[in-house]
């Protein structure tokens, strides 16, 4: 993976920033809205991990598919999940993308290729392979991505999926977002070999450990993996190093995170870093970025308002969507 033929130019970096700014703002709003009591939900903050999905969103097409996890709203926003049905679903309203039935852990939005969000660690991987198989059958060059955490790399489903993807040469990109913690357990304590990417070799596929907070490195690695997949050369495992700034889920006592480690990570917050760099490199001005950010806030305002003004589902809705035909009352 040495030849960096995939280089993020300034337009790409600006687009990555736009997405990252949206992701960051949305996470901040989510935590605020929970704290304010406006919406009660189980929420897994991804603050600190914004660059990875912003890059993915930049590289992927709408017809590429993604299977993500409970900590996945960043992945979905990167992929283009519109804000109104997102927030309405978080708020449990009937106007939510899943009519309030799925919630934050099971968000789905097929028009943008957001096919599965799972709460079962590791389960995104086997399903992504099926989407890849369909792409092969369709003779399409679309790819499918599954995201999962460092902790998930130790579960059986991920192993089975990587092996199958390798032997079937599937266009699946395995994106491990290594934030160094699985709930309260450190990466070192649970991971034989202390490295996820190196496991790829055992399956006969490329594995790359990349700084997921570095937009250029991340772009280069991800775009190359996508190009390989589109070209029919099979899967890639990317281990994207990152960090989550807050506890496992909202309300989690995060005292298990060493304060110095946390402080250093927040100090290196990749979103303002990218912002500063775009300005320094004259890709955009402070004013332009501020306008973008203001627009994002306005969009989120609108979505939250829409959500809170939307009607709740009716108990009778439980009879629908179990099967195609409704369950008898």
């Amino acid at each position, binding site marked *: 993976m040495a030849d960096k033929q995939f280089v993020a130019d300034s337009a790409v970096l600006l687009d990555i920033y736009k997405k990252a700014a949206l992701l960051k703002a949305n996470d901040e709003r989510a935590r605020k809205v929970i704290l304010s009591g406006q919406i009660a939900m189980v929420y897994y903050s991804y603050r600190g991990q914004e660059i990875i999905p912003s890059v993915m969103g930049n590289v992927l097409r709408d017809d590429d598919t993604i299977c993500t996890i409970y900590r996945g709203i960043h992945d979905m926003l990167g992929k283009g999940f519109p804000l109104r049905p997102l927030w309405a679903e978080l708020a449990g309203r009937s106007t*939510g993308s899943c009519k309030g039935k799925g919630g934050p852990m099971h968000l789905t939005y097929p028009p943008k290729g957001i096919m599965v969000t799972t709460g079962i660690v590791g*389960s995104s991987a086997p399903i992504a392979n099926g989407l890849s198989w369909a792409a092969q059958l369709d003779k399409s060059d679309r790819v499918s991505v599954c995201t999962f955490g460092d902790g998930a790399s130790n579960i059986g489903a991920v192993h089975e999926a990587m092996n199958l993807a390798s032997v079937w040469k599937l266009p699946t990109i395995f994106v491990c977002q290594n934030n160094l913690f699985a709930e309260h357990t450190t990466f070192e304590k649970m991971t034989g070999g202390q490295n996820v990417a190196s496991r790829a070799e055992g399956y006969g596929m490329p594995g790359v450990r990349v700084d997921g907070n570095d937009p250029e490195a991340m772009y280069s690695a991800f775009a190359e993996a996508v190009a390989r997949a589109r070209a029919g050369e099979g899967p890639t495992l990317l281990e994207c190093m990152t960090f989550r700034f807050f506890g496992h889920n909202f309300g989690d006592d995060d005292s298990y995170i060493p304060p110095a480690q946390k402080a250093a990570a927040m100090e290196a917050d990749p979103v303002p870093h990218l912002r500063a760099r775009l300005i320094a490199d004259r890709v955009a001005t402070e004013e332009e970025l501020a306008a973008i950010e203001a627009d994002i806030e306005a969009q989120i305002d609108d979505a939250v308002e829409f959500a809170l003004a939307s009607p709740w589902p009716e108990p009778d809705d439980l009879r629908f969507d179990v099967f195609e035909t409704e369950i008898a009352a």
Partner: protein
Amino acid sequence: MSATEKQAKPTVTILGAIAKAYHDALAEDPKVITLGEDLADPEGGGIAKITKGLSTAFGDDRVRSTPISEQAIVGAAIGASLAGYKPVAEIMLMNFTTVCMDMIVNHAAKLRFMSGGQTNVPIVIRTMTGLGFGSGGQHCDYLESWFAHTAGIKVCAASTPEDAYGLLRSAIDDPDPVIFIENLPTYFAPMSFEMPDSSHRVPLGKAAIQREGTDVTVVSYARMANEARQAAAKAADQGISVEMIDLRTIAPWDRETVLASARKTGRVLIVHEAVKQHGVGAEIAAVIGEELFGQLKKPVKRLGGTFSPVPYSRPLESAFAPDAAAILAAITDLAS
């Protein structure tokens, strides 16, 4: 008396009917695809050779052998179904669903609901089970009640070639996930049925009244339906008129047909090979008890596997599950 069995018809097997259903479905709809261990022709077309010829006829892309990775198998089926395909996944034996329950229960069964109907999972999981070959504790369990308890997935099983064909075709057509249970000991028995033509379907959720009767209702499915048919014939010789219902679809089961028959006879026996306790018979008995309170002549009786793992040794294996003799005894007892 089973009309279908008494006429001189060509002899077909359940295995042959399944193989034909498979073939016809692949031939008619390019969206039908299939995967499983040893499934393709280089691997001999599966351990029972049900899929023999399919990969040669329809290509390695649509008919795929897999590594031994049941989570990956069901996951791939789910994913492909989300992209518009109709995958048939083979989980070689029903006990091996235990290594992929997450994919089946948390994903295949729930994605339609959790997505608010935006996606659906039209997959079929074919899986084989049943005792009779001395394969012991980990290869013979009937686990249908687990899936019947799971909202979002259907379960069916056939006891005749016609039903095997019609149910498998309907399962593949169905827009939701279906578990199609097969039974090794009944695969090969030549039966007097016509091989159905490719338009034949058995609607999911509809039981078959395989013999009409007035004294005792027997509800059963899969291999036990064969045993029950034999018992019903013997009971007729003793002057007991048995109404013999093969559920065919175990979940959702056909309440109307069962309740109508129970109302008529007032005496019901439910038979399955799965462990009796907390088996599918419990739900059926509970519903009959609720719906026909005060209208039954005798308490609903259940026969099922003993409360133990499936044993190896032949005399133990024979004692584990009901057979025609035990069913006949129960019928006689109910009719008395």
